[in-house]
């Protein structure tokens, strides 16, 4: 098998928390603890989880927008864990990001055309080549050419998100992180963007990390899926395998909590008690133990490791496998 585009080994990202009192022991927020994953070329890897589970931090760490506390990140075989400043520049061209709110990721006073050309300029793409590329991409995302003379407030959320995608594709990146790209959009617009992503993926054989809190969207789009809880991956598998065979109690609850159109669904609902625990004082056992409907004494004592239960289906639970 060829080298995956991006590979993380036992990735750890911690944020120090300033102590409030003199002499108070330093505290650490464990945003991502011990995550390993690899995204092969041409595939879309989905990360799902609730707010605060570390999914965005994971995405940012893979792009080296964060310094890394522990573990390794490889991009196309190259170790990029400790690269800094200037050494990262050539990589940036190959790694792009799409954000949740397009109105916040475009300069409100800058014309769309100028915003797109700026990307090309920063990365020293010849102007005529950039111009041609921009026009091609506009065609791909179904927007007229006069869009280039507009400013973001004249565009709808869906149109602007399409432009954000075009901007990310402008430099033909090898890897894209899309952080909740459809969460701020209405369903009918969301459907347009998802269709567009599926088209572009075919055409440009995109490699993408798709971060979302919506199971249904991830299921529809992604090849591989990892479910995160409190900084760790609790379940990971091929999309079809995972959704047909939910093994971790957290994944099961998450899935059952999604309101669906099927009125019968509600009867099997597992309603979780309590909230996501704090990532500062993480309990020693399974992070999900406090809220888990199937919790056993051993779950509070030792942390379950991810293990393969067949079909490349990884689960971190004492009660499975």
């Amino acid at each position, binding site marked *: 098998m060829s080298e995956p585009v991006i590979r993380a080994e036992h990735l750890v990202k911690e944020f120090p928390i300033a102590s409030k009192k003199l002499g108070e022991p330093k505290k650490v927020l464990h945003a991502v603890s011990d995550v390993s994953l690899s995204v092969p070329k041409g595939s879309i890897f989905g990360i799902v989880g*609730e*707010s605060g589970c570390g999914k965005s931090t994971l995405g940012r760490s893979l792009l080296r927008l964060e310094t890394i506390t522990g573990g390794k990140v490889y991009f196309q075989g190259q170790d990029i864990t400790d690269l800094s400043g200037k050494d990262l520049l050539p990589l940036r061209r190959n790694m792009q990001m799409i954000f949740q709110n397009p109105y916040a990721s475009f300069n409100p006073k800058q014309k769309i055309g100028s915003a797109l050309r700026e990307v090309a300029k920063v990365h020293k793409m010849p102007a005529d080549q950039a111009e041609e590329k921009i026009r091609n991409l506009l065609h791909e995302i179904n927007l007229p050419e006069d869009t280039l003379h507009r400013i973001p407030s004249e565009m*709808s*959320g*869906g149109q602007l998100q399409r432009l954000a995608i075009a901007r990310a594709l402008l430099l033909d990146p090898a890897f894209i992180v899309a952080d909740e790209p459809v969460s701020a959009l*209405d*369903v*009918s*617009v*969301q*459907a*347009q963007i*998802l*269709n567009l992503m*599926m088209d572009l993926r075919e055409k440009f054989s995109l490699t993408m990390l798709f971060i979302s*809190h919506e*199971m*249904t*969207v991830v*299921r*529809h*789009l992604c090849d591989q899926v990892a479910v995160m809880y409190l900084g760790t991956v609790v379940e990971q598998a091929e*999309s*079809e395998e995972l959704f047909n065979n939910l093994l971790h109690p957290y994944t099961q*609850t*998450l899935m059952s*909590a*999604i*309101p*669906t*159109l*099927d*009125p019968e*669904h*509600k009867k099997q*609902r597992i*309603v*979780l008690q309590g*909230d*996501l625990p704090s990532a500062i004082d993480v309990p020693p056992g399974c992070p999900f133990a406090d809220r888990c409907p199937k919790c056993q004494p051993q779950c509070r004592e030792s942390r379950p490791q991810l293990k393969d239960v067949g079909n490349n289906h990884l689960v971190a639970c004492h009660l499975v496998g």
Partner: protein
Amino acid sequence: MDNLLEIQNLTVELMSTRGIVYALSGVDLAVRPGEIHGIVGESGCGKSMTAKSILRLHNPQRSRMRGSIRFEGRELLDLSNREMEKLRGTDISMIFQDPMTSLNPIMTIGGQIADMYRVHTGAGKAEAWEKAQELLAKVGIEPASKRCKQYPFELSGGMQQRVMIAMAIACSPKLLIADEPTTALDVTIQAQILELLQQLSADMGMSILLITHNFGVVAETCDRVSVMYAGKVVETGDTRELLQGASHPYSRALIRSIPGGGAKGSRLETIPGSPPALFEPPLSCMFAPRCPYAEEGCLKAYPAMADCGGGHLAACFKPLDKEVPAHV
């Protein structure tokens, strides 16, 4: 059965710097006693506008309301400001999307609930504090005596929303308007809040007008539902019936664009174009320019709400057949 709330031909025009915005153009809506009624639609379709109109929360200098809003037979648009003030929070109360911005950050949650209760009932301090604890326990914030003294920032988003609900039900209102109450919350917390709302509605016989953009939420909580588009209600009916066979092309397209029905990687149905800007009063069906079934007649007049069987109403000249399942 008499309706608790009956809105007829409600129009709301707002003055903006770019001219008059026809935010609502003829909304018809009826909420029965004890039912959970959903309003669903995309951003800018007038869901929140309708909710705010019921409580008359618009700036009277910059808006014009016409039509009729009858609550228990009383015409709300004719009430004086003072009478309206009395009604808010006691007979009709409202909760909003973002609880953090609705709560006072420098006041304990118990204090806020007690204050609100005293204003509406004239109760004493001690009595109001007791009531606050009782209400917190009722919405599942325990131990209430300790939680009462906490500040909003000490609570998670789900807990804050519970505080808002506690405050809203303090005076046992007959109607609770919930404007996207779970949109800012995670799915597992959303499930808890929806469960709570349903339980309160059943226990107190309270009607809930639930505003949401999520059809899944509607399917699981609402008895009946109204779909809005461009400032109008385009379809109303029993939730199950509407979801299984929407008669209005817009409702059906909206339901079909939800991922999860089809196979992985299959194309999702989309609606071409975008919703109209509301700077001109509507003269024809607002959905016609985007509708795959539109005919010449659709561009000439606005279709009235018509019964397509069993109290299921749709504003369409060519309502779709029910036989075709809406979500395949």
